[in-house]
């Protein structure tokens, strides 16, 4: 077999100018064949027997890559490609298959997403069948962002989020001395301002029921509150689980194992259906609060285990040194142990936070409609039946953007707090 392929001699540096053009020609032939075949339904190799012409692109490509595989060819780019994607016959086949899959799938995807998609119009009738109907997203956009929040009051949500973003951005630019006050303000004061602004009911603001909240802004509200709350709770649970006092330790273990053991969906059901039954008469707790608390406790259990991992990674000498300097339990942990432990587990913390953000759509089951919930509602609207795909793709893209940015931010933190041990 090899002998037949090598009728021109083995591919080598000496015959560079012979083999490289042949290789490129055969490789391109394979690509052209597969492109025409899959996108234009033209089979240029139909003169081959049936079983064989199906594999022709692969055979052409394989031969092409074989001839191109010249060791130390002297051409830097070719050498680099050979080392990375064409180092032996197995890798060359993998390379070809991946390229073929991309050729077959990317153009149709782009077609659906952009080229054939419909952007102009206001009703379902303006949409053709061939591409995505982004009109659906366009018309429903305010609902997907704000839920059923009254249109006249939307400025309140916008203002609070613009304030939040401004403050967070400011965090990077203000001098270190003021920074800690801003962080304290952001964590302990701002959530209440934001909540009050959105909820209303005082200072001349119209009261907006939490059941009217929804869409992406609800995703954010739940995530922000749960993130801020679950972190300190998780920290105390982690410390509690390592405490030498049996009551604290077993209480923490019990709490953590309980919340880790139940699915979030059941927790949400319990929070919205069962919990109110246990409340005394006349006491009412908003469903949204109950859900936020449920998610917070659920994620705090995970956070606790992540932080405990960091605590366990620290050598005993750090405890000894801090103790020998006269530090008690809290000073030892707050000044020496936790700063190091948290730094070690930034990837794990980011993981938990991302999971939390992506868990928020589950509140759908208790009737709170955040982004995915609103899409579910929109797609069942009689005027807009049949656009579930567009909706979920849109939600997927938004969630990806949010999570990707969080992940990048965590990488930046890791880089920033990196000190040699």
């Amino acid at each position, binding site marked *: 077999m090899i002998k037949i392929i090598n009728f021109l001699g083995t591919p080598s540096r000496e015959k560079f100018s012979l083999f490289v053009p042949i290789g490129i020609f055969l490789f391109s032939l394979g690509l052209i064949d597969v492109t025409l075949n899959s996108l234009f339904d033209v089979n240029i190799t139909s003169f081959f027997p049936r079983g064989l012409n199906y594999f022709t692109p692969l055979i052409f490509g394989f031969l092409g890559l074989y001839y191109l595989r010249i060791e130390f060819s002297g051409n830097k780019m070719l050498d680099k490609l050979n080392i990375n994607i064409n180092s032996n016959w197995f890798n060359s086949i993998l390379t070809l298959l991946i390229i073929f899959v991309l050729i077959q799938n990317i153009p149709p995807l782009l077609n659906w997403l952009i080229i054939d998609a419909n952007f102009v119009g206001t009703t379902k009738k303006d949409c053709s069948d061939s591409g995505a109907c982004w009109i659906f997203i366009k018309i429903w956009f305010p609902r997907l962002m704000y839920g059923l929040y009254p249109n006249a009051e939307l400025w309140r949500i916008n203002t609070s989020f613009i304030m939040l973003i401004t403050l967070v951005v400011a965090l990077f630019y203000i001098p270190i001395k003021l920074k800690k006050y801003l962080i304290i303000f952001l964590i302990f004061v701002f959530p209440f301002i934001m909540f009050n602004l959105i909820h209303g009911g005082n200072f001349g603001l119209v009261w907006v029921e939490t059941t009217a909240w929804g869409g992406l802004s609800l995703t954010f509200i739940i995530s922000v509150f749960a993130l801020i709350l679950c972190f300190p709770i998780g920290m105390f649970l982690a410390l509690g689980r390592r405490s030498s006092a049996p009551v604290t330790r077993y209480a923490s273990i019990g709490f953590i194992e309980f919340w880790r053991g139940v699915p979030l969906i059941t927790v949400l059901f319990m929070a919205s259906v069962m919990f109110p039954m246990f409340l005394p008469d006349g006491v009412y707790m908003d469903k949204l609060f109950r859900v936020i608390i449920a998610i917070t406790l659920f994620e705090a259990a995970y956070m606790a285990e992540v932080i405990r991992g960091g605590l366990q990674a620290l050598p005993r000498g750090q405890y000894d*040194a801090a103790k020998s300097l*006269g530090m008690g339990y809290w000073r030892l942990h707050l000044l020496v142990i936790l700063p190091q432990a948290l730094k070690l587990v930034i990837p794990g913390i980011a993981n938990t936070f991302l999971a939390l953000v992506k868990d928020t759509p589950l509140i759908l089951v208790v009737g709170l409609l955040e982004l995915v919930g609103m899409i579910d509602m929109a797609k069942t609207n009689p005027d807009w039946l049949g656009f579930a795909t567009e909706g979920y793709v849109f939600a997927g893209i938004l969630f990806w953007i949010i999570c990707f940015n969080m992940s990048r931010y965590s990488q930046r933190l890791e880089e920033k*707090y990196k*000190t040699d041990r």
Partner: protein
Amino acid sequence: MSENIIQMEKVSKWFGDFQALKDIDLEVAQKQKIVVCGPSGSGKSTLIRCINRLEEHQQGKIVIDGIELTENTKNIEQIRAEVGMVFQQFNLFPHLSILDNCTLAPIWVKKIPKLKAEELALKQLESVKITDQAKKFPGQLSGGQQQRAALARALCMEPKIMLFDEPTSALDPEMIKEVLDAMVDLAKAGMTMIVVTHEMGFAKEVADEIIFMDEGMIVERANTEDFFANPKNERTKLFLSQIL
């Protein structure tokens, strides 16, 4: 008796079934420098770790500077603030600069204002000759520099007693001298010191008395000259013949 800054009576300590300290009696007077030596596993480290209660003794009585070590956390923290310790593995806090390492405890435990604490820290860093490393992080320093920084950190608490747990065992040979020099300076300044070490040259130069420990007991305690010239116990003789 009141001049004895450390007073141990019949102190025993077990790790599970293993008895690490057996009825230890030890008095240390103010400004006394004592070197503790002995084979590994003989309880030297445990002994000095009991003095600032990094290890808990289960029997007997330990009185440090008039305060008895008991379950009372207040007492323990007070004693720890008065007793400095230097470890074999340095144990600097890797997330803080050398200067912050030195000021952390004075600021948060002794409540000294930040500026004053920094001033004090720089003075101590100067005494161990690493002022120029103050802004660096522990990971950027050599072993010898890290150990001297650890010494400065302990001194910033202005302790009455300094404990050294094999301070040079984790160091390269060429770095041992710089650490020992710093310790010699400290001894000359009149600090009460208990040093667990195998550096017999250092012992000869500084120690008032030498304690030889084996199997959790103090086998021999003698002043430095006698200890090296005519050790009384057979085990001491054997040990000395092996290390000298």
